[in-house]
């Protein structure tokens, strides 16, 4: 029982850390630190770094939360199933 809780928590931490790395790259990375570098690439009227800072990062944030919801739902189901098998 305790072992399963630990396993659940570790999987949770793994999911959260991977998603937060992407979160950091999309905003602080592409939108701020490498923004000037990316500005040399142009897509339509947007310089890429400017686009990430004012548009792209926000779209990525939304996607990240829904990926998190999906992965956690899967994890919750898996754990619930294992618990059922025990009983």
């Amino acid at each position, binding site marked *: 029982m305790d072992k399963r809780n630990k396993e659940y928590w570790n999987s949770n931490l793994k999911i959260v850390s991977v998603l937060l790395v992407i979160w950091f790259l999309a*905003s602080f990375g592409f939108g701020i630190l490498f923004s000037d570098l990316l500005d040399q690439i142009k897509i339509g009227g947007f310089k890429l770094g400017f686009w990430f800072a*004012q548009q792209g990062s926000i779209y990525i944030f939304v996607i990240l*939360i829904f990926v998190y919801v999906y992965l956690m739902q899967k994890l919750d189901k898996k754990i619930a199933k294992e618990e059922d098998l025990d009983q």
Partner: protein
Amino acid sequence: MSVQLLTYLFVGLSFALYIGIAIWSKAQSTNDFYVAGKDVHPVANGMATAADWMSAASFLSMAGLIAFLGKDGSVYLMGWTGGYVLLALLLAPYLRKFGKFTVPDFIGERYYSSFARKVAVLCLIFISFTYIAGQMRGVGIVFSRFLEVDIETGVIVGMAIVFFYAVLGGMKGITYTQVAQYCVLIFAYLVPAIFISILMTGNAIPQIGFGSTLVDSSTFLLDKLDQVTLELGFTEYTKNVKSNIDIFCITAALMFGTAGLPHVIVRFFTVPSVGDARKSAGYALIFIALLYTTAPAVSAFARMNLIDSIQDQSYSTAPQWFKNWEEIGLIAWQDKNDDGAIRYSSGNALEGTTPKYSEDRGKHGERLLENKPNQGNSNEVYIDRDIIVLANPEIAKLPGWVIALVAAGGLAAALSTAAGLLLVISSSISHDLLKKTYMPHITERQELRYARISAAIAIAIAGIFGIYPPAFVAQVVAFAFGLAAATFFPALFLGIFYKRLNKEGAIAGMLGGLIFTATYIIYFKFINPSLNVEEYWLMSISPEGIGSIGMLINFVLAVTISSLTKEPPREVYDMVDMIRKPS
């Protein structure tokens, strides 16, 4: 119908809707009053969270700020949306599982200390009142410009409406009015943005429009804007002025501050389950992103249009909106070179930060100023950034009903946020201070009555802020986010993810973060504002961004002091284990 009549109609209809909802959703118990009975659907909660979150600042001020800041304005866009990722992944599901009523509740129980609870209540009240003052200014601006009533009358009407549904309905009333307010405000924001996008670029989607070419030309809008701003002596629109480290710290302070704001967190206490809390954060961010991705497009359009419509115009033939806003004191023109034409360029036009009008008129009919002209540059125009969103439809010559709609939307944004803030203030007083600390023997009915009384008192205080706005409203907004980042975020995050954190560590961390951040902001904003420039800042970090350093100090203090003092009791370990499990 005149614009004013249309505005009365739209504002009147929306107010009638809010009151109707309030009567339908009256709170019966403290559970209803604090957390809407915990049965709000995640999509409805997402909308309510979006309205709760998007304040007068988001609706009225943000696009205007970005229009003048250009790429530097991205800090608001990323900062005020990225916080939701932190909230969804690190806080909301666990705090929902904890299953109590308020944020100080969690801090008090997790750190087994009524002192920690009181520190949390203090921070909460300070942060929330700071915020409310800004909402009331928004209500005042909309009323005085579009309905031509005194700011006092406007604020009192607004307060009466909020009083009605917040005191009667509590969280339940607020939740469902916020759903309605979200619909009003997003519609009001998108309609003019779409119109203007079509007019300027021929593309109906503003998010794509501002990366497109201008109508009848092969030049991209942003390229044109870069060129025009550069010619007028500004930095190019798509380039940063601030240093990277400052932009980094401001964005971080806004993100972590957002995740730590009590009135946002408490919205996730209202859904039925942990899974719903996660989903709800996702829906909230979609609803918020709809406005936040439109805003930078509005900014670019507005900057372009503004320059086009006033630059080098003679004052006597200047557009009517220019004169309307001058009448209520948010635009000023000083004919420095005495040629009767409006010359707009970079730099402050006037000495002193805001215009002081004299009673007299100049020879072109303009309002004369007591400020001396700033001879360091040739700019003749003062424009308050808060007017951009409201003036935008007029500048683009859109029909009257669009202008009326924007007024109703601005009020919806201001009132929905004010109501959410009032609720967390009143529940932290009636629940955390009275029921949990000083008057533990009161019954639920008495607690509910105290909750209503404190909501009423909080509304009255907020009203006074609206009528007599403290001159430093804009300055103290940095406070709200900086303090939330430096106090609440680490205490909540470590409370969930670091079991070993004990009460000594948490209290030291919160107080350390609070004192450091508050001192830095007070020093540069109030004691020595003349030193508030990059060369005197700590590691070139502005007061707006210092909350992120305050947060690091909090983390370091909390973990160090914890490891030197004794472990938290067994029950706390069990409680953390409990909130880490979703069911």
